[in-house]
């Protein structure tokens, strides 16, 4: 679980409570190239590799202390309508460039950053839930009851880049772990994927990396493997790309025993260790 260790939050971090957050964010280093802002984060999900183990969901939930009931990266069980082919579909926030949630938010509690991330400030959110209604990907969740990890209870200030404390009556979602990115690490879900199915990187750099340390050309990966985006026809311009589930030859993991997305007493940190599937066995391609 070396990947999971990288997810741990460094003890040294000193984040001030949010106030005028946007001004505080240090801009990424200026680009070396001739023009343009430096970072454009993208994620690539190789559906051929995903075996539905949900390590990504667990790592995310642990990293952000995601309240029960929410899954910021949810693994859907899908079936192709025409071929009957079954596959798993991990769905983080799509960080849309034409984000319906950002458009409708009445108080700028969710906004688009220059690096492509759709941020969420739960300390400003008024809880109207319009963003949840607007999101076609169901990528947003709401704190219907008092979450366990409130700033008061945990004694930790709220920082939208970490998003590890939660407020009742507010909307939350995946934010691509900007705090980890800043430290040069992969988002928690990407780092935790035992199959290396999740890639994360910078589109400007044209490179994406997975948990196995494979770094590949983003453009090549997406073009060669016919990458697509979810519900492309809606015009939301997502920043998450999917590679079709071709030639999935390995068996899917056994179905989980009833594990609801947020059972009442479920610990925020996953406790069930899962067997790593050996990817060196030549299961793909």
């Amino acid at each position, binding site marked *: 679980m070396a990947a999971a260790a990288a997810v741990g939050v460094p003890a040294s971090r000193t984040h001030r409570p949010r106030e005028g957050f946007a001004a505080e964010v240090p801009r990424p280093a200026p680009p070396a190239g001739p023009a343009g802002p430096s970072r454009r984060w993208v994620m690539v999900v190789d559906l051929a590799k995903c075996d539905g183990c949900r390590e990504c969901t667990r790592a995310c939930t642990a990293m952000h202390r995601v309240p*029960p*009931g*929410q*899954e910021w990266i*949810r*693994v*859907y*069980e*899908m079936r192709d309508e025409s071929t009957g082919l079954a596959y798993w579909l991990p*769905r983080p926030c799509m960080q849309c460039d034409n984000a*319906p949630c950002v*458009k*409708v*938010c*009445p*108080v*700028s*509690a969710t906004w688009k950053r220059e690096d492509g991330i759709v941020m969420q400030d739960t300390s*400003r*959110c*008024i*809880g*109207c*839930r*319009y963003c*949840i*209604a*607007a999101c*076609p*990907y*169901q990528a*947003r*969740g*709401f*704190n*219907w*009851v*008092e979450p366990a990890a409130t700033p008061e209870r945990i004694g930790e200030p709220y920082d939208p880049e970490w998003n590890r404390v939660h*407020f*009742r*009556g*507010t*909307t939350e979602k995946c934010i691509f772990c900007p705090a980890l990115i800043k430290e040069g690490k992969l988002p928690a879900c990407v780092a935790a994927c035992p199959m290396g199915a999740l890639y994360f990187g910078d589109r400007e750099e044209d490179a994406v990396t997975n948990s196995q340390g494979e770094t590949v050309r983003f453009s090549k990966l997406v073009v060669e493997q016919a990458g697509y985006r979810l*519900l492309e026809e*809606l015009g*939301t311009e997502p920043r998450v790309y999917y590679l079709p589930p071709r030639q999935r030859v390995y068996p899917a993991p056994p179905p989980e025993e009833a594990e*609801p*997305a*947020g*059972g009442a007493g479920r610990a925020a940190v996953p406790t069930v260790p899962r067997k790593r599937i050996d990817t060196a066995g030549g299961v793909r391609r």
Partner: protein
Amino acid sequence: MSTRQATPRFSEREERLLASLTAGGAGTYALIGGLLAVFLWGLVAYATQLRHGLGVTGLRDHVLWGVYIANFVFFIGVSHVGALMSAILRLTGAEWRRPITRMAEAITFASLLMGGLMPLVDMGRPDRLLNLVRYGRLQSPILWDLLSITTYLTGSTLFLYVPMIPDLALLRDRYAAGPAWRRRLYTLLSLGWQDTPAQRHRLELIMRVMAVIIIPIAVSVHTVVSWIFGMTLRAGWNSTIFGPYFVSGALFSGAAAVITAMAAFRWAYRLEDYITEAHFRRMGYLLIALGLAYGYFTFAEYLTPAYKMATAERGYLTAVFSGPFARLFWFTQLTGILLPLLLLTLPRIAWVPRLHRVPLLRPRPALAAAATYAVASVVLSAASPSLTMAGLNLNQWIPPWVLPTLAVWLFLAFLPVFHARPITAAVVASLLVNVGAWLKRYLIVVPTLLNPFLPIQRAPAGWAVYQPTWVEWSITAGALAGFLLIYIGFSKLFPIVPIWETREAPESREAAVQEGIVGVAAV
């Protein structure tokens, strides 16, 4: 000024109207007490929600809006009628509107207050309400709603208040020796009205200008309410005609609310001299026209996606047409639109009373058949588990055509009754319209949310369905009670029929109005 006129004498019907301000028997107190209890119960429910969060409602991540938003759309819709009555009918010189404008505008006032509260009740963080001002984004339809509803509330309150000033002056003079609080209230609110020609001229001018301004504001209100939904990509909401569709539905339900209010006040305050059968007939015509427009929009709204059955819309449409929401949907269409229109038109046919000559088409046999059917279906459904095991499915013994036949039978049997009592017919139609209107608002909000683009998966138990809780129903009942309380309270403070406006019309014109001939505009 010394031009103050002598205390005006009031006619007999005006005296009766004025008596309604103060008269109140045990029934009135019981009604107000009951409404107050319901309203307070709603407050208790809201306090519970404030303490424990929105988790006490049936709302969850999938159905994230529910009856609160349905209430919001419903109340804002009903509020539309003020502009219709006071602006459109005023501008078109429809003289018959005079006795009912104020009760229509008061509906607007009361329902806007309650409707405006609903989004607040629905908010997860009402304590952060001021963020809407501090960080408000004009790009968000919620801000559009905030602005247009507050504008409409201001405008319609003025519209209610300004033409009331001459009446307030009348009351000021009448209660010169009356209770001190009434005297002070009317003196304050009548703004020193002396009924001079200059004042009258100014008042008429203000009213005419305001009548022009209020119409676009009113249209904008319900348009932006619909755009809360229309600005999303969701199946069932992603529609270009939502604006006019909602406006037509709003006018329809508002006009129906006015008919109900007319009948209630006419009965409670004995206003038969003011509100005649002709008024119900004319409001009935209005309701028919608005119902046809609303029915047309509904048809267009559902046919265009249903013809195509595009992937995104298929689940939602199936749920509404033949799935879990089908009963509710077809009820709103048949009983909320079609039946009211039939009730307003068919009983007026001249040969309708002749139906009574057919013995079977009298109310009693029809009612007896309906009762038999009800008892039989209850008994059969109670007995069917055991009988089905015995190889008999008794539910199949009642063929599907029985229910519609029964409905038609009942309708035909009661047609002559409604022919004899047109006001009852109008009131029944109006109540059906409003029940259907609320259910339709619910059907606009909930089925769409249950049919998202991605399948609903890994939802904790109870999260993939919507079952409103006692908190939501209590707050809904409280809002309705609050609406009625404001409305009744208003009628106890101010005459519900404009005195000076109905007095202005000479007796002969009034007679003409009652005959339905309608005279020239008084302006």
